[in-house]
């Protein structure tokens, strides 16, 4: 048996440490990993737990991220709990296997510390890697700070391993701003955490020789479509289990999570939709604007990026006049992906908010409270005018001349 760790009621952990503690407490059977900034400390911390007797699972140091995720797939098919961590280039190298893992319905947990994708090479945080995973068939949950990285990593096991889901789950946190910033974190004890996650329930395991299984079959035009459709259905319907797990977590800890987080939205006239640490910046800006400038600002944040909370978005934005959707990944020749999701959600409702897109924070460019305030002020101007007063897509915080695309059609 692995040794237990005595934890204080409040610990000072950064996001990486929080995630690695959650992996330890979930008593993962196999961690197969490869280091990359900024998620390296997750792998290193876990290595320290292994070296000091806090883990009795296997720890496989692979020769690459592709090898790490491939070993995770083999391990998961052998019927136990599996997890790993990565960022950026490592995520891109894993990408082939991410699709294979979800196609085989293996509930692996991947903690992704979001980082920009080269070229140019950049180790700082943006959401380029997270966005590259959005069609890969994984549940994608977004943590905005260290406490959430800890909480949601525990939840991830319970969501992915649920017999109604059986899908791999990514838990995202922002590179450096979350991963390397020490904050107060309230952990569960080892016993409480494991009791919450529960024992792993093997399904179609390769180590049950009374019932041989074939993993990774070939299907062509006769069956491939049905398989993919079924996988999509499982991901679409996983929201029920996500809600159930969040409820259970709240009962245990008092900390409440929602697939769509909403702040000051009850009477909001303008809103920012964002992901990651930007959410806290936007909340702070909204509070100040409400106090100082009388702008009824609110913030909407998809906690669950996949499955995407379309219904909740429709309700949250039903009475908002102007919405800014912030994408921290360069869409390269299109509108931002989050913007398109929001417009898609709102297009089928009677509500007709003015929706514009802001690209920001690429490669770790700071997004300050004043940046968020300016975006809110532009929304207020739109709301007052009754039409979009800016271009549809603007780059926020970019040096040099203003970069913007698509003139809005004014009414």
């Amino acid at each position: 048996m692995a040794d237990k760790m005595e934890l204080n009621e409040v610990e000072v952990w950064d996001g990486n440490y929080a995630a690695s503690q959650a992996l330890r407490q979930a008593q993962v059977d196999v961690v197969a990993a490869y280091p990359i900034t900024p998620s390296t400390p997750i792998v290193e911390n876990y290595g320290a737990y292994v070296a000091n007797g806090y883990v009795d699972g296997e720890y496989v140091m692979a020769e690459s991220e592709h090898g790490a995720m491939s070993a995770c797939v083999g391990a998961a098919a052998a019927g136990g709990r599996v997890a790993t961590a990565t960022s950026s280039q490592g995520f891109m190298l894993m990408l082939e296997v991410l699709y294979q893992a979800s196609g085989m319905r293996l509930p692996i947990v991947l903690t992704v510390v979001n980082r920009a994708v080269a070229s140019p090479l950049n180790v700082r945080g943006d959401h380029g890697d997270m966005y590259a995973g959005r069609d890969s068939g994984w549940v994608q949950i977004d943590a905005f700070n260290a406490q959430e990285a800890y909480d949601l990593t525990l939840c991830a096991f319970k969501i992915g391993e649920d017999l109604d889901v059986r899908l791999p789950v990514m838990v995202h946190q922002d590179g450096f701003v979350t991963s390397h910033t020490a904050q107060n974190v309230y952990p569960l004890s080892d016993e409480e955490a494991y009791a919450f996650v529960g024992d792993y329930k093997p399904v179609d395991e390769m180590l049950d020789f009374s019932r041989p299984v074939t993993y990774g079959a070939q299907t062509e035009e006769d069956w491939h479509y049905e398989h993919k459709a079924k996988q999509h259905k499982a991901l679409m319907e996983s929201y029920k289990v996500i809600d159930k797990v969040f409820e259970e977590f709240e009962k245990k800890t008092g900390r409440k999570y929602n697939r769509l987080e909403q702040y000051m939205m009850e009477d909001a006239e303008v809103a920012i939709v964002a992901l990651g640490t930007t959410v806290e910046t936007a909340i702070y800006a909204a509070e100040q604007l409400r106090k100082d400038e009388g702008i009824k600002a609110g913030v909407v944040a998809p906690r669950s990026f996949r499955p995407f909370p379309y219904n909740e978005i429709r309700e949250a934005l039903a009475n908002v006049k102007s919405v800014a959707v912030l994408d921290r990944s360069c869409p390269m020749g299109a509108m931002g992906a989050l913007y398109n999701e929001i417009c898609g959600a709102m297009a089928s409702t009677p509500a007709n908010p003015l929706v514009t897109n802001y690209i920001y924070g690429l490669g770790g460019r700071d997004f300050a409270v004043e940046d968020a305030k300016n975006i809110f002020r532009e929304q207020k101007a739109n709301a007052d005018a009754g039409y979009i007063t800016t271009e549809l897509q603007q780059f926020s915080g970019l040096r040099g001349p203003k970069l913007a695309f698509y003139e809005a059609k004014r009414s």
Partner: protein
Amino acid sequence: MAITSIKNLKEFSTTNERFEGAHLLCPGCAHSMIVRELLNCTDDNLVLATNTGCLEVSTAVYPYTSWDTSWIHIGFENAASAVTGAEAMYKARKRKGTLKDPDAPVKFVAFGGDGSTFDIGFQWISGAVERGHDFTYICLDNENYANTGGQRSSATPIGAHTSTAQAGRVSYGKKQKKKDIVGIFAAHGAPYVAQLSPNKWKIMAKGFQKALETEGPCFINTVSACTTEWKFDPKDTIHVTDLATDSLMFPIYEIINGTKLNILYRPKNIIPVEEYLAAQGRYKHLFKPENRHVIEQIQKEIDEKWEYLQRREEASV
């Protein structure tokens, strides 16, 4: 561990069949002989992984499977990672007491073609061997990317015609030499590395059993004659393979711990490589006068390699 002792070929057809006869490999394909021999040379439970290639696409087409044991395919390059991930899970679950049948002996085996072994999956195998997992990797070496229509690999010998290294008016086919994959994995310090061939089936079965019994990572390159891409009649698979081993184009030997080489088969009559080459369409163009020098070069390299292997064996290194 229990190992079935096999005395004659007939016994293969009566031992339990964990690899069904119903599959889509070409008639005369040596892949199936090699795989069946591996499955039949042990009674232990098996967890198998297979890279993308002829073996994989021919044995697991949904909703059918030819595998009556645990089997996984992920991609073209990562069967070694898949099987070592499963092996790690086995160790973890054994320690934690969560296995259904904790006392049942289990062996972990990965199969790959030469494409996935010499080329695209090379790094994954190297990593798995270096990590020291208890598994056996078996390369089905047919010297080309057969599944995708016969392109060159780094296992394709000099002079062979493939669709991406063609023989033509100004080309004699592939210009580069074959990689020494056995030497490379011996250099990893793997406890057991060998080159084996299905025509010498008793030697092959013994080698497989040795690899399965040996704790740690073992690597075996097997000669797998490909009727379609080597261009010979499907009934001649074993005949062509005999020519391969008796011309010493494929010497049969093992290397223990990277430091001790044993020759496992010495042909009574060593035949000129010309006979082996002449039996296959892929070498047809070498018999034109302007390409004869390639045959000479192949023969010279075979002689030198045989000389080298014998010297190593004599010196016990």
